[in-house]
């Protein structure tokens, strides 16, 4: 099965995870990523194509850097839209705050944080062309990260329903990677990887190779 995974800097952890699973992976998986933001300004949707999105890794050659920068969804049996604009903490916080707003604003806002987002817009094109599509949430902030935005189950349900409305599947990180206070467990932070393979101190947003392995394993299991 040909699997195309599209995302941002979080693809870094998946790359290392995929390398670790190489021997157990019977699928042809390629990773496409545009790190840094704003993603929407750099990557453009044209039907089933995404332009300005470099291919960074292919499991078939165990290499990337082919110079390709146009992702064509119809070339794949399954497309996974990973992490981009899909941070559960922010969506959860927004869902809480919007309760105080008028119905007119609420309707517009809920559309904006779901079906009007980049991943959902592209997912709509893919599912309309019968390409199986999985929308995957970004990793939750790591333990130790102080934020007023915390993970709430409502956000998961909201995104799952939004994905279902487009006939797409929704996934988030496995339960056992989440701490009791709704953060990614600290063990997945150590040695966290960006796409540029550098680790940064006090990075509570990007996860390590083991996290990437767990995510890839779940994605492959879902296929």
């Amino acid at each position: 099965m040909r699997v195309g995974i599209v995302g941002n800097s979080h693809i870094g952890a998946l790359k290392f995870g995929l390398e670790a699973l190489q021997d157990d992976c019977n699928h042809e998986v390629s990773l496409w990523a545009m790190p840094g933001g704003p993603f929407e300004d750099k990557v453009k949707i044209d039907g089933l194509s995404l332009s300005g999105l470099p291919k960074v890794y292919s499991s078939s050659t165990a290499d990337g850097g082919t110079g390709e920068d146009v992702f064509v969804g119809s070339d794949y049996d399954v497309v996974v839209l990973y992490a981009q604009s899909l941070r559960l903490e922010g969506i959860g916080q927004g869902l809480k705050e919007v309760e105080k707003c008028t119905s007119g604003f609420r309707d517009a806002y809920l559309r904006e944080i779901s079906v009007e987002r980049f991943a959902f817009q592209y997912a709509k094109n893919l599912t309309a062309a019968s390409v199986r599509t999985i929308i995957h949430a970004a990793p939750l902030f790591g333990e130790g990260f102080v934020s007023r935005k915390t993970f709430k189950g409502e956000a998961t349900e909201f995104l799952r329903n939004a994905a279902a409305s487009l006939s797409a599947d929704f996934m988030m990180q496995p339960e056992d990677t989440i701490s009791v206070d709704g953060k990614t467990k600290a063990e997945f932070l150590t040695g966290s990887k960006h796409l540029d393979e550098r680790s940064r101190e006090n990075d509570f947003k990007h996860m390590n190779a083991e996290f990437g392995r767990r995510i890839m394993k779940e994605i492959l299991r879902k296929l």
Partner: protein
Amino acid sequence: MQNPYVELESSAFWRSAVADRSCFDVSDLWVPKFRFDRMPIYTAGSCFAQHFGRALSKAGLRWIDAEQAPTGSSEALKRKFNYGIFSTRTANIYTTPMLRQWLELCFTDTRYDEVWETDGRFYDPLRPMIEPNGFASVEEFNEARERTITAMRSALEEGCVFVFTLGLTESWMNKETGMHYAACPGTQAGTFDPKIHVFKNLSYPETLKNLRASIKLLKKANKRNKILLTVSPVPLTATASDDHVLVATTKSKSILRSVAAAASSDNNGIDYFPSYEIITGAPFRSMWFEPNMRSVRQEGVDFVMKNFFREHEKKFGTLRVPKASGRQIEENNDDVVCEEVLLEAFGRV
């Protein structure tokens, strides 16, 4: 002493202060009475006040954004629903009776309960365009109004510099209740009824009286509150006064300018900043206006704010930017939100 003029500064003489200088070098137009980097800043008033809020926020000062849109809202969505335009979602407050009414809602038992209904949607006569399609119900209208009042009250009670841009003297009101509207009924929402909706072109005493009543309420909220007045340089979109719109504009702005002078004279807690003069003054040859001679170009706004910060620093030294500054307003090139401009739709070609 030969005569009093002998000892005056060069800024008192047209030749030395204006005629012999490039207009870009005209300075000392303002000597601020108080600092802007020690207190949060609340902005309200007509369209031009929006520029102030943006510039103060960009400079890192504590611009108050007391009614924030939910996390993750796009700038376009915020603007559509008037979040982050003024310090609270009052929309433009063009006249001094409108300001008084908002402050009465915050600090007195006075209530303005009138609601406009159009095609099953409900509109706030104090801010008809605050929701692009009106409110779904009267209950929703009341809740939204109360949220704005609560946010405004809280911000003003905590203490701030209240920046208010005087915009218009022309107003429409309900002659039965005395309520002033943000717009003529029937233009943005509501239905015009000539039996109860009357045009009012506020005189100098009426404008000043309403401003003084507003200042009293602002001081009642917190006696430390400071007030900075400006006059919008933006001409009227339309006049209902029977005068030519240019004549009506001059009359209106003259009254507002005089009222600002009267309110700020001999009061250390109330200042006037001459953005009006910087944009409309003869030395500037209308260069700051767009070709329609109404909208102010961004360069004009930047020039106004450059003067503002320069004179502030001249008096008080380098601006002390607070560490925990208010949320910065996103910069964009969109026009400011100006409901009055909708009147253009009713003009004959």
